[in-house]
């Protein structure tokens, strides 16, 4: 059996899986104490179950996200090697910074060496500022990690934890690398304490199964491996629902996933059945990061959104004043409208009518007419948002003539709805969009299911430069010599072998499917002769649903 647990903003959903199917599920309101929010529903669901029958525990937690949003990060000092370029003085207002000299250029060539006295003095300075953790980030360090490593060797050991920028991602983007490193060092202590506590608690309950943590890209990593990059555990909630929706409903075409909650609806897209990613990385509490994550955009309407009349106009959300009237609340909501219209078969119709009546009277229409108006408006808002974000992803910048003229344009064929209030929304959204909306069985616990079924994923970037005769595996901090005849085939071999190793380190199954997700190959021409090649590959363990459902 597998335990999948998704801790959201208001509730924790837990599912117990047997043979890949939900066998038991529970929902529990969020508690003040973080650990309790996990352990109480866990104990509920484990009642009468054999703890030794549990094979895996998968958690999607808001721990790191909350720490960032609430500013409860550890004291991190940032040692930065920016070289020439953008003025980064504004960073001083966010965290303590020491700028040091030295420069690596876009091909990974050392243009200026480090001044080791300056490095040591940066370390002392950070101590004086009270920093316990370090972020060490150089421009173009993904093309040559040498300076970051040297800085770490010199001053890193006297701090509790250091993040080296190149280990987080192979992507370019210095400001994002800085922020991601800062957050990674900032959440490390909190995550470490959490991991210790949760492992202890599971031990107490005789659950000996390995623990995995969900990431924003819809994959997982082993609880211990997450200590290497705890920042990867942020914003996993939307990914849990997306992976769950995909597990519940087979889809091979372009599609939309709507995760309908109490106050918001999260919108995600699938291209030929594969979820869309954020192109540069996800944003957490205003920090643009390099963390790989699934594309998901919130829209301020959910099942319990408050419906009001403002200047004679219907206004839906973003406030929520408790559950729908049909379910014992006191204020009108979109859910009540759907109950009155008979679309949503649960809840009390008479209470829903009671809830909508004041609005209907104020507007001078019947309750049924009011329900129609809310139905239309709710669908309009959601569809408007879908179309806006669809426009956004369909106009993503491209850099080749081929992509510009023949590139894929998303044309969704169906919508999958998940989340507890989903039944109320399927019909109106389908009508407005003109494509089928599917409400798969098990929609209420899609998030917990998604968490339970996700597999370990990781990505890796290889840059081979045969003119410079160097090969860099950014995230692994490897930079080595290659012969001038090194080919793309060779690069692929290197990529897949390091990727498999990394997957094992992250607690994954070495036989997981791997794929190349980005590739570029350029001839380097100097003085009218081709003098080398630049080959860049990015590979990943394909995010997806685990094949081995377990017994």
């Amino acid at each position, binding site marked *: 059996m597998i335990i999948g647990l998704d801790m959201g903003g208001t509730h924790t959903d837990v599912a117990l899986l047997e043979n890949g199917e939900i066998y038991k599920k529970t929902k529990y309101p969020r508690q003040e104490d973080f650990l309790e929010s996990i352990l109480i529903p866990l104990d509920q669901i484990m009642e009468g179950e054999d703890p030794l029958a549990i094979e895996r525990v998968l958690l999607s937690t808001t721990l790191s996200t909350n720490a960032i949003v609430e500013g409860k990060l550890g004291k991190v000092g940032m040692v930065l090697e920016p*070289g*020439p*370029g*953008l*003025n980064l003085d*504004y960073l001083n207002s*966010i965290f303590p910074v020491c700028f040091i000299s030295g*420069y690596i*250029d*876009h*091909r990974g060539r050392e*243009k*200026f060496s480090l001044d080791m006295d300056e490095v040591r003095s940066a370390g002392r300075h950070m101590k004086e500022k009270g920093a316990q953790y370090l972020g060490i980030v150089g*421009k*173009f360090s993904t093309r040559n990690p040498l300076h970051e490593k040297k800085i770490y060797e010199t001053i890193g050991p006297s701090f509790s934890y250091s993040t080296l920028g190149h280990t987080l991602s192979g992507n*370019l*983007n*210095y*400001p*994002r690398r800085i*922020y991601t490193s800062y957050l990674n060092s900032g959440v490390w202590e909190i995550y470490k304490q959490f991991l210790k506590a949760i492992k202890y608690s599971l031990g107490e309950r005789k659950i000996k199964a390995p623990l995995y943590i969900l990431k924003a890209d819809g994959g997982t990593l082993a609880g211990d491996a997450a200590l290497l990059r705890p920042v990867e555990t942020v914003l996993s909630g939307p990914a849990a629902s997306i992976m769950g929706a995909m597990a519940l409903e087979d889809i091979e075409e372009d599609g939309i996933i709507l995760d309908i909650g109490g106050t918001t609806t999260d919108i995600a897209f699938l291209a030929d059945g594969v979820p869309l990613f954020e192109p*540069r990385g996800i944003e957490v509490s*205003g*920090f*643009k990061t390099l963390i790989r994550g699934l594309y998901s955009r919130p829209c301020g309407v959910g099942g319990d959104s408050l419906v009001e009349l403002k200047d004679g106009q219907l206004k839906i959300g973003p406030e929520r004043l408790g559950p729908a009237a049909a379910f014992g609340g006191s204020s009108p909501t979109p859910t009540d409208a759907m109950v009155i219209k008979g679309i949503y078969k649960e809840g009390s119709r008479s209470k829903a009518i009671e809830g909508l009546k004041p609005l209907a009277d104020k507007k001078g229409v019947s309750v049924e007419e009011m329900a129609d108006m809310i139905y239309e408006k709710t669908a309009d808002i959601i569809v408007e948002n879908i179309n806006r974000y669809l426009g956004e992803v369909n*106009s*993503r*910048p*491209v*850099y*080749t*003539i*081929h992509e*510009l*003229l023949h590139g894929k344009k998303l044309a969704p064929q169906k919508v999958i709805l998940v989340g507890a209030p989903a039944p109320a929304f399927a019909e109106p959204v389908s009508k407005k969009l003109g494509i089928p909306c599917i409400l798969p069985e098990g929609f209420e616990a899609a998030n917990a299911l998604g968490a339970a079924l996700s597999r370990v994923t990781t990505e890796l970037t290889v840059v081979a430069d045969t003119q410079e005769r160097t090969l860099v595996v950014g995230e692994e901090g490897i930079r080595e010599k290659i012969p001038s005849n090194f080919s793309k085939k060779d690069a692929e071999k290197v990529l897949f072998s390091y990727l498999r190793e990394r997957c094992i380190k992250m607690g994954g199954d070495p036989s997981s499917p791997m794929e190349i997700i980005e590739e*570029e190959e*350029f*001839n*380097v*021409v100097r*003085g*009218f*002769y*081709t003098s080398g090649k*630049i080959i860049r590959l990015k590979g990943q363990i394909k995010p997806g649903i685990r094949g081995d459902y377990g017994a």
Partner: protein
Amino acid sequence: MVLKAKNRLGLVFFPAFDWAISSTHPEREERLLYTRDQVEEEGLFDIDGIIEYNPKMASYKDVQRVHLCVPDEKSRMTESHLISAGGAITAAEAVIKGEVDKAFALVRPPGHHAMRVVHGARGFCNINIEAVMINYIRKHYGIKKIAIVDTDCHHGDGTQDIYWNDPDTLFISLHQDGRTLYPGSGYTDEIGGPNAVGYTLNIPLPPGTSDEGFLYALDNLILPVIEEFQPELIINSAGQDNHYTDPITNMNFSASGYATLNDRLDPHIAVLEGGYSIEGALPYVNTGIILAMAGLDYSNVKEPDFEPGRFRETARVMEHIKDVCEEVYRTWKNRSKYRQKMIKDAKYLKERRSIYYDTDGISESREEIIKICDCSGYSILTSTSDRGYTIRSVIIPWNSCPKCHKEGLEAFEKIREEKGFPSGIICLQDGINDIFIRETP
């Protein structure tokens, strides 16, 4: 936590990573690779207020507003040229619609050597992307007075040719002296055709000119002239081959110099032209221009090997630059007097020239009869290439007066009736009615 641009800047960044003139040509896939790496690493696309646009594709109709393609559009260009011109249009539209304050079209291939008639490619250019953009926005948004400042190291002879008779387009080219560099033109005595004397200004600079010389010409000549011309739009043809590392030129301009020039010129739209030091210059120059246009601090943008003062001009070179600027400024000031001297009492003037297409090895000879008027007039242009094509066209510019327009149309009818015109293509480019007619024998 996010840097905010002072000016909202539209960026049409289209490196065309799958297009080259040939695999080892300077215009090849690799050209903007390191620039992409640099702007990506600097995180410029994340800056609040910098908005990235995909280029749209220009149509043949957009090209016909500018060019006479021989024998036709289809044979003279590929999709890449239409995308590059379309990228410039996208940039301009973003500004005119008010979506952004300024825009930079970082596109390739370039266009400023493409002239009115297109028999082939010249100086890596097939169609003039700025001109296609300008004629497009004039047609669609009614913008009249435009200043183009061409800061490419090569003389912008194509743009000069297209707006030669247009007094509503001020064309200023700043370039390495034509005696020492392709295309061998752009002298101070090239000052515009009979209807626009003084609205073409050329500033040939001696080899070795560095930041000081460029900025001198900007502050003492270009900015005052623009101030007097009062354009509605300023466009910078932002070639980057004046850089001290450029392999095909001999100037000493730096990234910081380019950024400063852009900052002071303050163009609404910049369009990339040449620039072939793809590693040593383009990544830094483009970063500098983007920051300057966005109104952000560019003082820390420099080439890793840059040393201030290393390339300073000698006093003699600076004296020469000052003399050139003074001479050009006199031309501008005395433009009506010069015009009188040129046209005297003539009603028509004839211009003859030979044009060489270096990229395709084509020779063209051309004759143009221009109607003298206070508007742009109209003209009858006859062009023959050594590939056996002859074209005769009536060109009625977008700002012709009703009289010139009528006369131009009559002239076209007359050419049509002249059955004897030898094996030629005849064309009408009517900028008033936005009509293009081509008839082949």
